[in-house]
């Protein structure tokens, strides 16, 4: 493999500060993570991931294919990772809907697929701009059980960090892994620091093929038969139960969250993704005014940090939980099923398809306290 050495080459000599868009941060993160090939289909607001990748990838001996649609982009990624290559795609909105089919295959066959979802407004074509309306689809889409790992980022630094981590999570645990961004994060420019994962002590997981293995069949190896359909209900039951158990077992290692000021809070603000920036500002402003607000943010929406959220509620003694999101209750539903049994009163600030700023959250809190 003449190209192999090239793939090992460092993407940058030393950490580099940059002022770039989130889509560009995805591309650099994927390069730094050693991604080898991208498959994609144009859809706003992820297009620039492909634009940057197609400009940078050839310089590093990496591949790209613009497929005929998102079904094909998802399935070509499924093929490439079976071949042992670090492959990825990026999509949004209706593209995410189409990709639920290949994402389901990745769940069923435990394929280390990595996809970046830059949420846009829905339903249907909706708007091309921004929303947080792809939470349900990304966490539990498909005809399965939501055996996926979903990181919801809130800054360009996190986009870069979690793109690198996302590839590792996918290859370590063999569950399809998603970076859930949005149109704002995709398109805005803000500073971040880029680095080689190795220089930060991050060991990139070695990839390996599931098919096309070395050796001679019948001589020193068996043929690989990857199965995706079962004749009997009981067979499928066994498989799904086994996968569920594995998913539950590894979940504590994967769960990530961010919590601030939850000790002695009267109200906890629960947000994810870019909205948590506004929540962070709102908590500071409210505290300055003597209102005891706390901040909780799941970074992994799947698996959900339910234990940690329950603990935050318990230790705070908060009477209310405000769930704020740029959707009509998708984070709300997810949270409620995860913390079933808690008696804290849940309030909502649902602003589907539009941005939420600290002002909106502060006003809402003042109206309910």
């Amino acid at each position: 493999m003449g190209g192999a050495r090239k793939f090992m080459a460092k993407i940058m000599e030393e950490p580099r500060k940059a002022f770039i868009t989130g889509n560009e941060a995805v591309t650099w993160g994927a390069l730094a993570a050693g991604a080898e090939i991208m498959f994609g289909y144009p859809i706003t607001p992820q297009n620039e991931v492909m634009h940057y990748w197609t400009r940078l990838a050839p310089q590093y001996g990496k591949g790209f294919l613009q497929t005929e649609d998102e079904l094909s982009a998802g399935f070509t990624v499924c093929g490439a990772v079976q071949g042992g290559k670090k492959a990825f795609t990026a999509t949004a909105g209706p593209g995410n809907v189409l990709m639920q089919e290949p994402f389901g295959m990745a769940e069923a066959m435990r394929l280390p697929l990595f996809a970046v979802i830059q949420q846009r407004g829905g339903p249907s074509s909706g708007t091309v701009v921004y929303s947080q309306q792809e939470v349900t689809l990304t966490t539990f889409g498909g005809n399965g059980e939501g055996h996926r790992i979903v990181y919801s980022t809130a800054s360009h630094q996190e986009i870069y960090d979690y793109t690198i981590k996302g590839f590792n999570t996918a290859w370590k645990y063999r569950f399809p892994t998603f970076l859930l961004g949005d149109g704002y994060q995709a398109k805005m420019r803000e500073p971040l620091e880029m680095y080689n994962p190795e220089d930060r002590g991050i060991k990139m997981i070695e990839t390996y093929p599931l098919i096309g293995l070395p050796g001679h069949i019948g001589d020193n190896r068996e043929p690989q038969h990857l199965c995706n359909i079962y004749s009997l209900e009981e067979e499928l039951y066994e498989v799904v139960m086994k996968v569920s158990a594995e998913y539950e077992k590894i979940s504590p290692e994967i769960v990530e969250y961010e919590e601030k000021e939850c000790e002695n809070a009267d109200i906890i603000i629960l947000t994810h993704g870019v909205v948590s920036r506004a929540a962070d500002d709102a908590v500071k402003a409210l505290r300055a005014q003597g209102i005891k607000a706390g901040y909780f943010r799941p970074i992994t929406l799947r698996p959900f940090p339910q234990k940690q959220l329950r603990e935050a509620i318990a230790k705070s003694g908060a009477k209310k939980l405000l769930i704020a999101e740029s959707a009509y209750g998708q984070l709300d539903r997810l949270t409620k099923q995860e913390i079933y049994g808690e008696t804290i009163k849940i309030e909502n600030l649902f602003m589907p398809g539009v941005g939420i700023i600290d002002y909106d959250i502060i006003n809402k809190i003042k109206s309910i306290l």
Partner: protein
Amino acid sequence: MGMIAPVTPKSWYLPSKPHKFCPGCGHGIVLKALGETIDELEIQDKVVFGCDIGCSLLAWNFFACDSTQTHHGRTTPVMVGIKRSRPELVTIGYMGDGGGYSIGSQHLLNSAVRNEKITLILVNNTNYGMTGGQMAPTTLPGQKTETSPYGRDPELTGYPTKGPEFIAELTPASAYVARATVAKYKQLKRFLRNALRNQMEGNGFSFVEVLSTCPTNWRTNAQQTWNFLEEEMEPYFPIGELKSPFGKGDK
């Protein structure tokens, strides 16, 4: 006991035999021809065999070759993904007429246009067998199926898809496009061999449609089955090489 075991290709996976196709089904013939071809080309270790959903899914562990099972219509992009990332492998996509010409037609069409270096084998038995005999893109005019119980009316549902013909129009000269039939075994093998060689030599897209039989859903006996294949299907779907980098087409 006491049965004489038939000679089987080396590349067949014996634990999965006898295979699960219905009696009289043409799949076994196609897969035998393919197995012998894989043996003759000595590519067993390099082949990745991908099967679609439909009756073709039953072939998921047919070969002692690395194999993967996909979704209905999506074998083509999975093969493209494998080939694009592992060009040294020989990728064989195996599908039916529904998977290739209907639900997966956009993948078939676009991978042909891109001249992807993959080999696709499409088994045409004029109906959706696995789901119980519904009308397929290849169902002949007047043919009765579960969803055309009074016979396919071209006024309402168009004429049967002629896959190799449209793929030949879409591909450059380096592609290989042919239509074979399970009724002409030697020719079938020659076409499959050419389709694999064409990929191995890095020339381009390689596509073979194989006319096949489905007595279960056609509700035909052995004689009627063969008659339908040779007297009804073949006149509509002409056999031969439509495009070959290996010289003049063989009609």
